């Protein structure tokens, strides 16, 4: 048996050494981590407009340099509030998002706030004269949160593309919203309004789409996740409607 003093001395020394090593390593790698995270998030945005970037382009396989240059040259980032008014980058920074751009807005944090206090990122992609608006949405799946980006044409009704991700949906079932490219592809060309002009968003229909205008096929065995996607699209895109209205007027 060692004396108490020895034990305390040993534990304290070990803690200090370990803390020093780990904090040095974490600080040293921070710039690389931040860069990786930024590129990861940018790729998720680009995943919604894959079809516009060229044939057979996979956003997650794009080289890092290309992702950054697309963002620099072709994408304008805007942050808006629930009324559709733009929020200045100082204001965004004041809300705790360092950098103040749309890409820095953390939808996970925003989702916890009451709707009227939230801010929303918008990425406007310039496709040679035509603007495509990419909006971020977030909702709940079966086990945990799901989120995604939806790209809309400048008629604010037709979907150009969508991409989804999730925290912990079942692999092979709910996780197909991310893993199965065929599920994402279905959203291309869908309208978020029915033939009479009522807002419907896009509905993921169990047993197969009935109204091809605004419905897509569900995933068998993943009804709850699919319903989550429907809900997320319905509420998520609606938050952007006031902003779209201001754009339509101008």
């Amino acid at each position: 048996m060692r004396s108490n003093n020895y034990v305390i001395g040993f534990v304290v020394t070990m803690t200090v050494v370990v803390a020093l090593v780990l904090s040095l390593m974490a600080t040293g790698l921070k710039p690389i981590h931040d860069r990786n995270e930024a590129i990861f998030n940018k790729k998720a945005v680009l995943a919604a407009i894959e079809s516009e970037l060229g044939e057979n382009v996979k956003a997650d396989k794009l080289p890092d340099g290309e992702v950054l240059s697309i963002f620099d040259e072709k994408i304008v980032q805007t942050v808006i509030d629930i009324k559709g008014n733009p929020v200045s980058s100082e204001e965004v920074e004041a809300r705790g998002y360092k950098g103040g751009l749309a890409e820095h807005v953390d939808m996970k944090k925003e989702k916890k706030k009451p709707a009227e206090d939230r801010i929303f990122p918008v990425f406007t992609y310039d496709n040679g004269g035509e603007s495509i608006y990419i909006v971020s949405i977030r909702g709940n799946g079966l086990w945990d949160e799901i989120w995604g980006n939806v790209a809309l044409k400048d008629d604010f009704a037709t979907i150009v593309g969508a991409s989804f991700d999730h925290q912990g949906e079942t692999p092979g079932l709910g996780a197909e919203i991310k893993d199965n490219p065929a599920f994402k592809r279905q959203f291309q060309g869908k309208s978020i309004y029915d033939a009479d002009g009522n807002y419907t968003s896009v509905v993921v229909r169990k047993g197969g789409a009935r109204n091809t205008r605004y419905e897509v096929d569900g995933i068998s065995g993943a009804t709850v996740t699919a319903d989550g996607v429907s809900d997320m699209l319905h509420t998520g895109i609606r938050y952007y409607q006031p902003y779209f209205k201001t754009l339509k007027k101008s």
Partner: protein
Amino acid sequence: MAETTIEKKEPIFAFGKKERKLLTDPLNDNNPITVQVLGICSALAVTTLLFPSIIISIAVIFVCAFSNLFTSLLRKSIPKQVRMIVQLVIIATLVTVVELTLKALDYPTYKQLSVFIGLIITNCIVMGRLEAFAMANSPWKSFLDGVGNGVGYGVILIAVAFFREVFGKGTFLAGTPFEVKIIGPNSEYLINTMADGSWFSWYQNNNLMVLPAAAMFLIAIMIWIHRAWNPKLVDIS
């Protein structure tokens, strides 16, 4: 009459029969998964795809080897009263090192594995080897023992993941540049089950394979085969 035994001083990095046994034993007679049935939880959780399983295996080999090494180096100065906590701190430190490195090298995989890297801390194989081996053996031997057990774990993990990915998703090494799409319902796959006159039109990917239950069956089958092939194991239990 005093008996004098002249102890032959062994070189620090000896690599003889005993050392080789430290590496090969966990692959067969003492495999951590199929014989000791340790570390099952992570074997069920991460093995849906081959690539993440390979990453986890490398991480476990690293953590196992170096935690064994450091524990063995410190074994004479670690106070017995707090030895488990000290071992845990060593493991946790190494796991954090792995996590920070992976986050810098391959961010998408880091995101995909999320909590499972951190859960290596609770992998009973690591702690088990520290208690059973590193606390009583020299650093070099402990290091080899750690590598051996890590590899023994990794081999099973990768084998399970191979079957789960091929039969569950019809792909091989998905998510890497070496991805091969083997069998599936469109022309991107080598065997297109939807093609006209395809011999495989009856085939569907097995959704059970991507659920943890499939890993349970696969590991059980591996234990069965292992025991049938190595009768020495049957008498142990």
